[in-house]
C-alpha cells in the first residue's frame, strides 16, 4: 500500500453512483482521498484551479450535463499539465463507439458501471492497485475494457 493517500476524483452527475463509489472506497480500506465533481464544467474548473492537487486517478462518467466526459477527456489530453492523469472511463454505456472513441483519445481504462456492489468494490480495488506504468505501456484495444477475472 502507498504511504501517501491516493488522490481519487470522480466526475459523475448521478448522486446514487457517487454514493456507491464513496461506500465502496470506504470498504476496500486503501488509503485514498476521494473527491467528487458533478459535471464536466465543474471537473475542468477543479482541474485547472492551481490550488487543487491533481488527482492520481480520475474516474470519468461520459454522460454528464454541461460538458460531456468525452469533451473533458479531449481537453485534459491537450493540456500539458493534465495529460498525465490516469483516466478511467466510468460509464453505463458499453457501446463499441464510446469504447473506441475514448481509447483513441487516450483514456487508460474503460469501466462499465457494474450492477452489483461487490463487483464495484472489486473493480475499484483492481484499478487502484494496478501498476499503471506497466498497464499503460501494454495498453491495447483488447485490454482497454476492464474485465474482472
Amino acid at each position, binding site marked *: 500500500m502507498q504511504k501517501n493517500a491516493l488522490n481519487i476524483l470522480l466526475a459523475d452527475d*448521478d448522486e*446514487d*453512483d457517487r454514493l*456507491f463509489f464513496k*461506500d465502496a472506497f470506504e470498504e476496500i480500506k486503501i488509503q485514498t482521498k476521494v473527491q467528487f465533481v458533478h459535471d464536466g464544467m465543474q471537473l475542468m474548473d477543479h482541474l485547472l484551479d492551481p490550488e487543487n492537487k491533481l488527482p492520481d486517478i480520475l474516474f470519468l462518467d461520459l454522460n454528464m450535463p454541461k460538458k460531456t466526459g468525452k469533451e473533458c477527456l479531449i481537453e485534459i489530453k491537450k493540456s500539458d499539465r493534465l495529460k498525465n492523469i490516469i483516466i478511467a472511463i466510468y460509464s*453505463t*454505456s458499453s*457501446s*463499441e*463507439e464510446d469504447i473506441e472513441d475514448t481509447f483513441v483519445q487516450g483514456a487508460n481504462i474503460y469501466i462499465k*458501471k*457494474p*450492477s*452489483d*456492489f*461487490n463487483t*464495484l468494490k472489486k473493480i475499484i480495488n483492481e484499478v487502484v492497485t494496478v501498476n499503471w506504468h506497466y498497464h499503460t505501456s501494454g495498453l491495447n484495444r483488447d485490454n482497454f475494457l476492464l474485465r474482472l477475472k
Partner: protein
Amino acid sequence: MKWIPNFNSSNSLRVIFVIAVFILLFLSSIAYKHNQDLNESSKLAMHTYEINIQLERLMSAIKDAETGQRGYIITRNNRFLTPYLYSRDKVNASFVTLKKLTVDNAVQQKNLENLFKLIIQRFVSFENCLKYSDPKTYDKRKLDNHMFGGRILMENIRFQVDKMNDIERKYLKKRLEIYDQEISLSPVFSISLFLTALLFILLAYRQISRDFQRLKLFNKQLLISGGLMAESEIIGKFSTWQWELDSHKITYSDNQYRLLGVTPNSFVPVIETFLDFVHPDDRAAVSESMDKIIEKKNLPFIYYKIVRPNNEIRYFKSTGKLLTDQQGSKILLGINFDITDEHLLNIELQERNRELEKSNKELASFNHVASHDLQEPLRKIQTFISRVSEADKAVMSESGRDYISKIAVSAKRMRVLIDDLLLFSRTNTTKKEFIKSNLNELLQNAESELAEVIHENKAVIKASKMPKLEVIPYQIEQLFINLIGNSLKYNKAGVPPEISIESEKVLSSDYPEFLEQSVKKFHKITFTDNGMGFDPQFKETIFILFQRLHSKTDYPGTGIGLAICKKIVENHKGHILADSTPNVGSVFTVFLPE
C-alpha cells in the same frame, strides 16, 4: 470477286467496266488500222496500175511515132508524120507523170532515167532515119543501120518498161502478202477479244443484278429497322436527331416532335427551334453543352427540362456524338430521353428514402435510449439489492426475503433482455467493417468466451478447417457464440453435448431459392448437435425476434439470440437455415459468400 481480297462490288464493277472499255478501244483501234491498211493497199494497187498504164502509154506513143515514121518513109506523105510529131509531147507528158509517181522510189527513178535516155536515143535514131531516108540525103547503108539500131533500141525500151512493171508488181505482191497475213490473223483475235469484252460485260451485268437484289434486301431490312426504331422510340420514350454541321441541316425523328408535344414534321427544325422548347432555366446550359459536343466530339448526359406548347414540363436526358463521314462532313448525332416518369419516381423515392432514413434514425435513437437509459435505473435497482446485506435479510420476514430475491431475479432478467436488445440493435447500426479473417480463429474466440459453460456441460466441439473470409469479425464471433450457446443450452438431459462444425464450398446455383445468384460461390458451414432438437415446423419462426419455443422458467432466454444470428448472416449477404429432428439433434446451416 475473290481474287482481290476485300473487293466490294462497286469496285469490281468498276474494274470490269474499265477492262471492257479498254478491250473495245483496242478492238476499234485494230479495226481502224485494218481499214487504213486496206486503203493503203488499194492505193498501192492503183499506183502500180497507174505506172503500168503510163508506161504502156509511153510505149504506145513511141510505137505511134515508129508507125508514123514508117508510113512517111514509105509514102512520103506528110500526113503520116503527124503522130510522130505529137508522140514527143505525149512521151514528155507521160514521163512527167511517171516521174511524179515514182518520186518515193529511187530504183524506179533510176530506171526511169535509163528509160528516158533510151527514148532520147530512139528519137535521135528516128531523126537519123528520117534524114537518111530523105531522097535528098538518101543513104541506104546508114538508113539500114539506123533502122536496125532503132529496132534494138525499141527492144531495150520494152525491156526497160517490163523491168519497171515487174518491180512494181513484185512490190505490190509483197505488200499484198503482208496485208493478207495480217488480215488472216486478226479475225480470230478480234472475235476472241470481242467475246472477252462481252463476257466482262455479262459479268458486270450479273454483278449489277446481284447488287440490285442485295440492295432490295437491304432496303427491306432498312425499312424494317426503321419501323422498329420508330416503334421503339415511342415505347422507350426517346428520340434521335441529326445535325449536318456543314449544311446546317437538322433532322428530327418523328418521336422527337412527339416528345416536344407537337405532331411529327409540323415544323422545319433549325438550331434555335430546339432551344425554344428548353425551359428558360436550362437554356444556357443546354446551349453551352451543344457547343461543347462540337469541341469534344461527344457529350456526357445532360439533364434539363423542356416546356411543351401546352405548358407541360417534361424532364429530358440527352447525349450526343460527333461523327465525321467518309467525305469529311461532320454530323452531330443526338439522342433525347424523356425521363419525366423516372424523374418523378426518383423524387418520390428520394422522399421515401429520406422518410425511411429519418424513421430509421428515430428507431435507432429510441433503441439506444430505451436500452441505454433503461439500464441506469435497473443497474441501481440491482446495486441497491446487492447492498441489502445478509444481516439486513436476517431481520426480515421470510416473505420479505422471498420478495427481495424475486426482485433480484426479475431485475436480472430485465438486464439480460436489455443487453440482448442492445446487441440486436447494434448488429444493425454499428459500423460494418469487413476484414479478411480466419473463421477458425473466430471460432476459437467464441469457444473461449463460452469456456465456462462448455466445461460445465462437458461438451465436445469438433470443427473442420474453415476458410478465411471477408467478414465483420466480432459479428461472426457473436454468431458462433450464439449458435454454440444455443446447442449447449438445449442439450439432452444427461447426455454431454456434441457439436460438430463442418465447412464446404458450394455453388449459389445449387440453392437458387435463397442464395444471391450474383455471387457464384458460398461457404456452407453446418453446426450439428445431439441436443433435444425442436419440431421442424418451427424452423422458420425460431429466427424471429422474441420467438421462443420453451417457457422461460425451463430455459432462460430472451428470444433474441437466433434473431441476432439471422441479422448477422444477412449483414454478410448470406443465409441461415435451421432443421431438426426432435430428440436427435438440430442442424444450423450458415451460408456465407466467398
